[in-house]
């Protein structure tokens, strides 16, 4: 029932589209009184969500991706400096950068998106109904706005999060490609893996650490590799764990 409209098309010209169509198709239009009485108003749900997302997505994605890529690159290159198999390095870097960029994007966008969606939808709906003639409509608009936000905030946030993780993997691959090319070329030429020992020349550490705590040329232990796998699904696990210890999210307003 929800389709993109001329209103969406005109505001879309403002910026990158980010494939908003896929988001619009997932939106929920709640069965509230306002939409039952005025079905034509339903289309403004898509308009408001698209406008709100478009308003915040670019800076949120840009910032989250930049930070996540820098942090992941520095830490992965440090921890995998003596890892011969660059596929392991790349795999760890991907898992980490997805988790970091997605988490940052989500935590940054949630409140602004909620506020922006509320105010846009409210303004759009109030333009359409005659509150002066029928004051009870104001209340119906309030209820509709609150319900639309509640039903759609998660999917809208997910959209921003996914845009961030996708760009983060792409951007990180670009910065890692040179390192990986050098590693491959070195191996093909000499038959030996290329180690990055620059971190070992600076000070007492990491050389002074026992082998089980630092990168060693013999390769990383399964427990060490597992740490980077843990970035995947981190949020789901932590939500479950904290809910279990009694910190269930409250629906405070």
């Amino acid at each position, binding site marked *: 029932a929800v389709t993109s409209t001329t209103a969406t098309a005109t505001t879309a010209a403002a910026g990158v589209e980010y494939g908003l169509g896929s988001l619009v198709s997932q939106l929920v239009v709640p069965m509230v009184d306002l939409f039952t009485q005025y079905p034509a108003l339903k289309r403004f749900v898509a308009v408001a969500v698209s406008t709100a997302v478009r308003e915040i997505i670019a800076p949120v994605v840009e910032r989250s991706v930049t930070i996540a890529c820098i*942090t992941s690159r520095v830490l992965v290159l440090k921890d995998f400096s003596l890892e011969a198999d660059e596929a392991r390095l790349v795999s760890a870097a991907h898992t980490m950068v997805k*988790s970091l960029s997605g988490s940052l994007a989500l935590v940054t966008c949630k409140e602004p998106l909620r506020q922006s969606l509320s105010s846009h939808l409210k303004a759009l709906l109030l333009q359409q109904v005659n509150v002066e003639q029928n004051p009870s409509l104001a209340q119906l608009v309030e209820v509709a706005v609150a319900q639309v936000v509640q039903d759609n905030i998660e999917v809208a946030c997910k959209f921003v999060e996914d845009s961030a993780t996708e760009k983060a993997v792409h951007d990180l691959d670009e910065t890692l490609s040179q390192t990986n090319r050098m590693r491959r070329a070195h191996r093909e030429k000499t038959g030996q893996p290329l180690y990055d020992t620059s971190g070992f020349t600076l000070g007492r550490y990491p050389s002074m650490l026992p082998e089980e705590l630092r*990168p060693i040329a013999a390769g990383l232990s399964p427990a060490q590799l597992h740490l980077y796998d843990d970035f995947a699904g*981190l949020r789901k696990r932590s939500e479950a764990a904290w809910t279990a210890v009694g910190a269930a*999210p409250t629906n*405070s307003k």
Partner: protein
Amino acid sequence: MAGHVAAPVLDAASESERDHVYKLVGALVNPDLREGALMELSKKRDSFPDLAPVLWNSFGTMSALLQEIIAIYPLLSPPALGAHASNRVCNALALLQCVASHQETRSLLLHAHIPLFLYPFLNTVSRTKPFEYLRLTSLGVIGALVKVDDTDVITFLLSTEIIPLCLRIMETGSELSKTVATFIIQKILLDEMGLNYICQTAERFYAVSAVLSNMIEALVEQPSVRLLKHIVRCYLRLSDNQRAREALKTCLPQQLRDGTFNNPALLKDDPTTKRWLAQLRGITDAQQMS
């Protein structure tokens, strides 16, 4: 002779201490052992001077700390952070603070942009204890970064949104959070680039001076010498900028001119703040005469 005998004993003790720390650091990569290890290690910050380089250089430790940080993002909004989750992440932050304090690791932490992962914590507004504690501990990490005068730190912070985050905490935080946030602003101001940055536009200057002035007002009701000290230092430093000095003529709070804080009981043990206060009055008085 006594020293000769004592030395090996001391070495042996520190060696076992070292092994214990290594064991705890190794446990951080294991999600099941991590919580206990975080708690133990956060107590070792003072007794084991090499903790920061060990944390930074050991495999996966910094990544494990980041996992602890982002794991509680979902509890920030809507606010659902309990005491347990807050304590756990604050132990991780205590270790980050250690890395931020250490000469060998400070710039590494900065170049990895890791402090930015704490900004979502500083951005929270819930007044419950777990959130207060989280904000205070996060400010502690930033405070550790600025404690040593390092222009790289200031350059980094100015490229981020730390100033508005601190200003909001200075308006609404607990006394302790306000003090640390004001300390951070003070350290930014003491840097030449930081002073220029804040005095560059009227908007920035008034954003800072309005918050400082509100805090002075609140201090009349609830005095705090350490907070007053940082605020006065901020004002004094602002007056080093010609345009800011001009503006302070009209916007320096009355309470700093009229001796409200000259209460001997309040500043008895703090001649420095007393002197700064007098200096500040001198500047504005001289301007009023000219």
